[in-house]
C-alpha cells in the first residue's frame, strides 16, 4: 500500500474538505493530519466521502468520545483529530454523507468556527502589538500581520456565509 505526504495550509475548512474529496476521488485517502501535514494512503478511487467538523470540546473530552461512539454506530469513521477539528469519512456506497440536514445545525457549526477564528485573530493582534513595542523578533511581526490580514478576509467571507444561512432559515428549515 503506497502512501504520500502533502504539505498544505488551509484557513477555510470548506475548501480543505473539497480538496480531501478530490484526493479521495483519485484514490488517495487521508489517514493522518498534523498541522499542515497530510498523509494519504492509496486505494480504489471514490470509496469514501470526507467531512471536517469543529467539535465543541477537545477530542478526549467525554462528550466528544460519546459523539464519536454515536458516529461509529452510523458507520462514520473518525480518521484523525487535531485540536478541536475532526476528520471523518463514510463509505460512498452508503447514502450521500452530510453531517447536517437543516440550516439551524449548520449555522450552529459555522458560528462555532467563527468563534475560533476570533480567538486566533485576537491572539495575533496581541502578538503584533507586543512585537511593535518589543522589536526583538521583528520578523515575526510580518508573519502575524499576514495571519491577521488573511484571517480577516476569511472571517468576512464566513460571516457572509452565516448571514446567507440565517436568511434561508427565516423561510425554511432546510433545502
Amino acid at each position: 500500500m503506497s502512501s504520500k505526504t502533502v504539505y498544505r495550509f488551509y484557513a477555510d475548512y470548506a475548501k480543505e474538505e473539497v480538496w480531501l474529496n478530490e484526493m479521495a476521488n483519485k484514490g488517495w485517502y487521508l489517514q493522518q493530519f498534523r498541522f499542515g501535514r497530510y498523509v494519504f494512503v492509496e486505494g480504489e478511487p471514490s470509496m469514501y466521502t470526507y467531512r471536517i467538523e469543529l467539535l465543541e470540546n477537545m477530542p478526549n473530552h467525554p462528550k466528544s468520545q460519546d459523539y464519536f461512539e454515536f458516529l461509529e454506530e452510523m458507520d462514520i469513521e473518525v480518521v484523525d483529530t487535531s485540536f478541536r477539528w475532526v476528520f471523518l469519512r463514510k463509505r460512498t456506497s452508503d447514502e450521500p454523507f452530510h453531517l447536517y440536514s437543516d440550516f439551524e445545525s449548520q449555522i450552529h457549526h459555522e458560528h462555532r468556527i467563527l468563534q475560533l477564528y476570533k480567538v486566533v485573530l485576537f491572539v495575533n493582534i496581541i502578538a503584533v502589538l507586543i512585537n511593535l513595542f518589543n522589536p526583538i523578533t521583528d520578523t515575526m511581526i510580518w508573519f502575524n500581520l499576514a495571519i491577521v490580514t488573511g484571517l480577516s478576509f476569511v472571517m468576512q467571507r464566513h460571516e457572509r456565509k452565516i448571514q446567507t444561512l440565517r436568511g434561508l432559515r427565516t423561510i425554511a428549515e432546510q433545502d
Partner: protein
Amino acid sequence: MSRADQATALTEAVYYILLSLQQPRHGYGIMQFVQELSNDRVKLAAGTLYGALSSLVDKGWIEATDQEAGRKKEYIMTNQGRDRLMLELNRLKELVRHGQEMMGVEQSEQ
C-alpha cells in the same frame, strides 16, 4: 415549561425524533425509523441528529435508558416530551385547518 417552549414551533427533526421515541431506540434506529415513516423524505444527518438529541436530553424531553456496558445508547421520550409533542400536534392541526379554510381545500371526511 417556559412560555417560549410552548409558543415556538418544533423543528421537523425534533418533531420526528420525539415521534420515534415512544419506544427506546438508538441513534441509527431513530434515523431509519424517521426515514421510513416519511417515505425517504426526512433524512436526519448524524451531526444534526446528535445535536438535537443532546438538547432534548438537556430539556428533559427525552432521556437515555439504562444500558448494559458496551451496548448502543438508547433514548426514550419522557412525559414532558409527550406533553410538548401533543401541543405541537394541536398547533399543526390548527395550521392545516387554517390552510384548508383559506385555500378553499375541502376537508377530508374523518
